[in-house]
């Protein structure tokens, strides 16, 4: 068996379906538009309602939702943050939290990769493909040039992975800019191309297949000097590597890029109103290419973190089983495309993934096999509720007099109530 995501469920069957996100015509526009207020009430309510509904699912299977959530929380290692956790509990929690944060790092990057596109009015559903080409570039670079000094080697591998992701997504951006091809379609198609490219490269007889094990569809190992240093926990037991800081740094860069840079300003202008952007002299097509390339760079970097941090090689069934990037969409939606929100949402989903894993969840409370599906259920509910945030706000506004302005002509000067709250 090849590498398995730390504490994560066994790879699900090959992805035969893309994530189920309703692509109503106004979806991306709404995602672009609703982010301006940066409100925290709606995402918080979304989480509460999603967990509540997830609890109903747990109850329907005949288990106690509260003790199940408690066990998931324990499995995530988050109780390490409480000072009263001590003794052996604290050691276990530390290991679990390391696992959670190992997932959180790439999830932050994948969430940003979706969020930046949303801000420019694009839907990057191709995080998966960009992540895969990033991992391929990283594993190739990291397993070659054995004699290179470690730091240079690591950075080179990460830069190559970033460039590969940027190129991959840039293709979709260029297609959108030049031919008007919808990036939703092209990024999905490039996902499949990336998957089969990886299967070919690392499959039996493939050009990058392991030299020493001709019978295993797996890549060469990353040389030791090119691995990301572990700073917390045991390096041999998938301790926490410094990639989490790379991800946090990327979130800071993302904030500056989006809010303080001319390129981010152009991206937001294009996202809100491409026609006004064009009229102002902003080159809309070029902005599409740049935005997509930036997103791809983030997703590619995420791939390199996993490869250089704990996987150290790629097997063909890893590539086919990668679902992390789709979780990135939920992260971006829940995090409202903001830097801080994305980090928090990534932590929540990282905790959920690890808290429900076979390794971390107490089977006496809830069978991990079922619990893994709970992650998917909650992921789905989050996407559903964020997309249908009107529902959430309805709950919030329930006792208030609601004013649904029908058509612009009827709207008062205060605008739409729902948007004000969001």
């Amino acid at each position: 068996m090849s590498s398995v995501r730390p504490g994560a469920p066994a790879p699900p069957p090959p992805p035969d379906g893309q994530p189920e996100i309703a692509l109503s015509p106004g979806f991306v526009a709404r995602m672009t538009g609703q982010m301006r207020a940066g409100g925290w009430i709606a995402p918080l309510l979304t989480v509460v309602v999603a967990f509540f509904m997830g609890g109903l699912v747990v109850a329907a299977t005949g288990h106690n939702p509260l003790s199940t959530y408690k066990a998931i929380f324990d499995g995530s290692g988050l109780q390490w943050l409480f000072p009263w956790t001590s003794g052996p509990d604290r050691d276990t929690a530390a290991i679990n939290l390391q696992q959670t944060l190992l997932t959180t790092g790439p999830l932050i990057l994948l969430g940003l990769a979706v969020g930046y596109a949303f801000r420019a009015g694009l839907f990057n559903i191709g995080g998966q493909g960009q992540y895969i080409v990033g991992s391929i570039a990283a594993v190739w670079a990291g397993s070659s040039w054995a004699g290179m000094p470690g730091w240079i080697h690591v950075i080179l591998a990460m830069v190559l992975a970033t460039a590969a992701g940027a190129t991959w997504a840039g293709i979709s951006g260029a297609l959108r800019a030049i031919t008007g091809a919808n990036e939703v379609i092209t990024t999905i198609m490039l996902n499949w191309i990336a998957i089969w490219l990886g299967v070919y490269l690392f499959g039996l007889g493939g050009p990058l297949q392991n030299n020493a094990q001709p019978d295993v569809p797996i890549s060469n190992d990353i040389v030791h000097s090119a691995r990301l240093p572990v700073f917390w926990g045991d390096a041999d037991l998938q301790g926490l590597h410094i990639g989490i800081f790379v991800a946090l740094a990327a979130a800071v860069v993302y904030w500056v890029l989006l809010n303080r840079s001319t390129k981010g300003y152009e991206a937001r202008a294009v996202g809100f109103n491409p026609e006004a952007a064009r009229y102002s002299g902003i080159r809309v097509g070029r902005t599409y290419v740049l935005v997509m390339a930036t997103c791809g760079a983030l997703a590619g970097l995420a791939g390199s973190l996993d490869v250089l941090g704990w996987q150290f090689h790629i097997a063909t069934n890893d590539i086919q089983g990668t679902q992390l990037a789709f979780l990135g969409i939920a992260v971006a939606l829940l995090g409202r495309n903001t830097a801080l929100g994305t980090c928090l949402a990534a932590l929540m989903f990282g905790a959920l993934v690890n808290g429900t894993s076979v390794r971390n969840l107490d089977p006496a409370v809830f069978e991990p096999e079922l619990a893994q599906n709970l992650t998917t259920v909650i992921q789905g509910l989050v996407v559903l509720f964020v997309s249908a945030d009107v529902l959430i706000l309805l709950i919030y506004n329930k006792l208030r007099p609601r004013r649904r302005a029908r058509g612009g002509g009827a709207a008062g000067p205060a605008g739409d109530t729902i948007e004000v709250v969001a």
Partner: protein
Amino acid sequence: MSPQNAGAAELALELRGITKRFGALTANDAVDLQLRRGEIHALLGENGAGKSTLMSVVYGMARPDEGEILIDGEPVTIDSPREAMDRGVGMVFQHFMLIPVMTVAENLVLGAEPRKHGLLDLAGARRRTRELSDRYGLKVDPDARVSDVSVGQQQRVEILRALDRGAKILVLDEPTAVLTAQETAELAEVLRALRDAGTSIVFITHKLHEVLDVADRVTVLRRGKTIGTVDTAGADDASLARMMVGRDVVLRVEKEPGKPGQPLLELDDVHATDDRGLPAVDGVSLHVRAGEIVAVAGIDGNGQSELIDLISGLRPCTGGHVRLGGKDITNCTPRAARDAGIGHIAEDRHRRGLVLDFNLSENLALMDYREGTRFGLLKPRRMLDAASRLLHEFDVRGGSPVTPARSLSGGNQQKVVIAREISGNPDALIAAQPTRGLDVGAIEFVHRRLLAERDAGRAILLFSLELDEVRALADRIVVIYDGRIVGELPPTASDEELGLLMTGSGAGRVASS
């Protein structure tokens, strides 16, 4: 003007002390309104005066914080549009609530479909449409698709639908905003006929002449308060404008004759196609001199939009040359056109002129956000300072530099666009429908400013569908018809002279002023 208790029975609708707040903003402040049975009552006010809010209260879309609504003398509460309909209140919105792919008859019965054996009775729907159409003299074709009929026709469908639901009180929100002059005249006829048949009508508008033309009485709102109700019989433009704006308004600004200098903007036999690839601008030649306003008059859709786009680099020029100050700027990018000195007050401020979700400082920086930047980082401080200065200079009200553009009234939004374009210090300024949808106070401001910019030596090319505006501002008028300049007239030209040229029946009198 004072409420007469004896007359309560003859009031179809009465509002007493309606107050509606949105957060810190009081949109309606103790507003009173008395609608008599069988009258056309105009609700007049500037953009943002609270007219639409008041009517959304009547139609059950907003619940008033204080005040009473009386229908036929009885106090009622209206919590939803459906309740409003049940009480005989019908509403026609500025943006129609029609489904374009369905027929007129299907749209008309939508929400109250006739059934036969549990199935939709289309024949019944058609019959009902025809009956209504005959009874009220509103001609519509029941079988036409809504997307195929004119805007005026669509509005009739809306009116008929309200009548079909039993509306005794009909509220029309800025019904003429989307209509041509001809359609507006037809609508006035329709409303008079409905009034004579006993329907009570509230007519929301900010256009003075419509009030005088159509309404029997008028209630004026200003900043959410009732200023007064008067009979239109004794009122005139000036008195209504004073009530509406709160001061004397110059309805037609005085202008000195221009002192034109060298030609700055020159078009030489330019051509362009429309979005479908058909010729739209077909060999236009004209020039605008420094310190001169040249107005392009014409009926909408005769190539004006394409000509604007062509000059500002938003549409390819398929033939001919555009020169600015002697420099060829044909087919340059929008940014290069701006850098060369073209300013452009966009025709549609929502679609083009503004990013509504950006705040005012971001909107005002749309052309110069790169100024003074280093390492590709914005200068938010500079943007905010510049915005404060411009908002003050152009008297933009209702917002600070960090207010979203969306929350400003139309007039103030337009001032933001104008402030930005003028602050770019362009040699030539294209002003496309610069006062569309603005009230008289804002129009006066825009007109004064454009004349001031003319006197400062800019070359201004004005596109307008309003002949009054064209005459008020222009030093020369050129008429565009079917993508060609068919004549040039002085600003003293009469409606008839202009009209003949605009409809293509003029004798191509090309003369210089």
